[in-house]
């Protein structure tokens, strides 16, 4: 056992990644019988943005998100599920006096695995696992001249978890779940304090990529959902909160969103769902 917890974590993650990739390369017929759950969600809510590269003021407005979430029981163990998430976010915010607009647009995709455990006595499932996430986008302040945009690009290794409980409500199964996702380590892009993108365009690419850790970039995504099952399809209702704060090169960025989400969840291959086969999670 290594004395370095990060190295141990990386080794565990890589081992899991190798197992999973090799399993995905096996023939498709092995997929037969494995439960897949896909969810399409749309979220609407509020956004609070600040990026000192663009403005020292904090902006507030609306946020819109579209997301796809796919979980699948792994081929080597029913205790492991693979988890794919992809999403696009669009925020429009105003400064405190309402005379300047800041937009934020982001794409993100993550893939990982979750080891799940069950507590049958309480009807509770829970799990935890690693994921790798890529995010890219930008904040755009329309009235700035040479610094109108602040590009964002991040690659992180995340820790994701869930805890869920299925209950019966008026004869229907309702799966209530809380899913936090916490980037642990990675790398992200940032220009220097007053470095213009024009200088980057001219070829000065030094010092643009920074290691990400909780001290300079902290992000926490929280998703609380209730899946109301109607056969093998569920209506998802929930609340999503994302907090991201970073400080590097004396530049601070803060992005906080609160969204109510609505979605459709489908269980593939679940022809006669029972309480135990409602979800890979």
């Amino acid at each position, binding site marked *: 056992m290594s004395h370095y917890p990060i190295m141990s974590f990386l080794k565990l993650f890589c081992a899991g990644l190798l197992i999973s990739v090799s399993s995905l390369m096996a023939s498709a017929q092995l997929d037969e019988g494995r439960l897949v759950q896909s969810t399409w969600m749309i979220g609407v809510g509020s956004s609070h943005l*600040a990026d*000192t590269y663009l*403005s*020292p*003021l*904090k902006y507030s407005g609306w946020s819109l998100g579209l997301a796809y979430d796919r979980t699948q029981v792994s081929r080597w163990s029913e205790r492991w599920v693979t988890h794919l998430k992809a999403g696009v976010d669009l925020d429009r915010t105003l*400064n*405190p*006096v*309402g*005379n*300047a607009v800041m937009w934020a647009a982001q794409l993100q995709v993550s893939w990982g695995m979750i080891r799940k455990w069950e507590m049958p006595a309480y009807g509770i499932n829970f799990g935890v696992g690693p994921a790798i996430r890529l995010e890219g986008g930008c904040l755009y*302040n329309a*009235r*700035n*001249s*040479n*610094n*109108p945009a602040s590009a964002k690009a991040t690659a992180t290794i995340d820790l994701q978890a869930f805890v869920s409980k299925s209950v019966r409500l008026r004869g229907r199964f309702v799966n209530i779940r809380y899913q936090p996702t916490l980037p642990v380590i990675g790398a992200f892009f940032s220009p*220097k*304090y*007053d*470095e*213009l993108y*024009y*200088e980057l365009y*001219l*070829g*000065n690419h030094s010092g643009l990529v920074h290691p990400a850790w*909780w*001290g300079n970039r*902290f992000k*926490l995504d*929280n998703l609380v959902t209730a899946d109301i099952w109607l056969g093998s399809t569920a209506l998802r209702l929930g609340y999503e*909160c994302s*907090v991201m*704060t*970073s*400080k590097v*090169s*004396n530049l*601070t960025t*803060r992005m*906080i969103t609160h969204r109510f989400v609505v979605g459709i969840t489908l269980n593939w291959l679940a022809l006669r769902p029972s309480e135990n086969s409602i979800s890979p999670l």
Partner: protein
Amino acid sequence: MTIAMVMTSCHDIPEYQDDPEGNFEALWTMIDQHYCFLDEKGVDWDDVHKRYAEKINPVMTREELFNVCAEMLNELRDGHTNLSSPWQTSYYRQWWSDYPQNYDARVIEQYYFNFNYRQVTGVKYGILPRGNIGYMGYSSFANPIGEGNLDAILSYLATCDGLIIDIRDNGGGNMDMVDRIAGRFITERITAGYMVHKTGPGRNDFSKPFEYYIYPAEQGRMFWTKPVVVLTNRSTFSAANNFVSVMQYLPQVSIVGATTGGGSGMPFSSELPCGWAVRFSSCSVLDAKGNITEFGIQPSPGCEVDLDLAEALNGRDTMLDFAIDVLTR
């Protein structure tokens, strides 16, 4: 969530009240932490705070606050520094208003070309009536010139023995146009200059100068290797000033006219709690020898000349005539 709140508070963003004092302090701090020419201009910014903070009071009107803030920004003597409110944009004008104008486009259009000049994307060009000299007047680097436009202009003037690029009253615009036009006068990569930006809020937090280059236009384009005069006045500013800083070191080029207006600081945008926009220089562009050009670029030795207003009334642009003489002597 507790951890998230703790981390958010660690990455603090200073906040100022939207009142006269808060807006004043926000503006002063912004310049203190971001402006790149405080030392070069000998501005004692702490003393500026002392003098102008006395003029701030809680009951002053927005207009009074704007006037104090604008006056404070004028201490920077920078044409790239502005404060914009809904009713006014402040502007330091002395960088050009204290100097002769030295340019009247009508004189050239009427008395040198009899209005028979060609015009494309902001460039007026033609062959001058004396000395077989080509003329290319470019009024703003904000007017983009395409590679095809440059081919057409230089092809039309190809039989001329010299070329005058008149950028008097050219207030700048797109720096890409500097590269594009200068690329027609070089045959190999040249150092265009250096960029230095602030790396932190400290007054001496500057990056190492980053050397950047200009490359010749691609093969097959029209090039100009014969003598060139770049004609300047005090209102040659910003990107136009940068064009002069590049062209001045080319062996076939003479800078003729008056000292340019400078404006070598790339402007950054920000804002105050009351929503007023602020623009200021945060990134200094040095010339190929590492010299600061914020205060302007002088003409080549022996090439300084002003417009004779009496002669202008008679239809003569004495600066243009001087430039023709430089190319024909």
